[in-house]
């Protein structure tokens, strides 16, 4: 694959997040990311899952046994905001390694910058563009974004800055 710029990669991830948001049909925040993992689109049926774990090593991680059903293993003691963002972030790994994701070529596009891609994708999914624009139209402030969408403050700040006013 030819070199792809960060801006192009982010555009693509933004579109993916938008597609999943439209699939969920969430009319208001917070976005039910865990529900998406448990009830994904048909093309990912039996592909994803969520497993609660006790761990001190990571907040969440995705694992897929060879030819098996993948799961996000998530630390049980995260706050709801941390859990939402961690699940959204790991959802990208689930998509990339799924049969449909591999057929799309997600591995070639996203694996080289997986951390940046996953974090950007998670912010776009947890704060979808239409809801962010609606939040802004209602005079919503950056300081209130984290609470409104139930995501950590740092991620909310980055999402606010990512999106044109």
């Amino acid at each position, binding site marked *: 694959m030819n070199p792809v710029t960060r801006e192009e990669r982010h555009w693509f991830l933004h579109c993916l997040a938008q597609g999943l948001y439209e*699939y969920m049909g969430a009319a208001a925040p917070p976005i039910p990311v865990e529900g998406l993992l448990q009830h994904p689109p048909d*093309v990912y049926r039996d592909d994803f899952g969520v497993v609660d774990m006790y761990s001190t090593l990571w907040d969440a991680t995705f694992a897929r046994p060879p030819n098996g059903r993948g799961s996000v293993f998530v630390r049980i003691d995260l706050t709801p905001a941390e859990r939402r963002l961690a699940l959204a972030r790991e959802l990208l790994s689930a998509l990339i390694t799924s049969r449909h994701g591999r057929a799309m070529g997600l591995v*070639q596009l996203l694996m080289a910058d997986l951390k940046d891609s996953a974090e950007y994708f998670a912010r776009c999914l947890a704060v979808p563009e239409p809801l962010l624009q609606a939040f802004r139209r209602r005079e919503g402030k950056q300081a209130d974004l984290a609470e409104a969408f139930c995501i950590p403050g740092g991620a909310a700040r980055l999402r606010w800055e990512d999106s044109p006013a």
Partner: protein
Amino acid sequence: MSMQALNRLVARSIVDPTVLQAFGSGHIGQVLGELDFSPEMRLTLSGIEAGSWTEFAVQAYRTVKASEKPAVRIELPSPLEGLMQEQEQKRSDYGQVA
């Protein structure tokens, strides 16, 4: 308009396998026909040769973006040109006096 249509197409591709099937079988033009692309853009995008859907998407993004970029040119008059015009004017004024 084309960028919005492309955004919708890529968004749809993550949940709708028919997009990928159409691309894989060389019939992406049919899917593009369902979206709000101009006939010329549809033709251009249909002609993109890519080894994967993501490669197609990125090439399509570049194509659409290039077509939508307004040809902005800041055409300020050269300061020299301005002085020359002033001189010409003066000259012609003198000419009229003379």
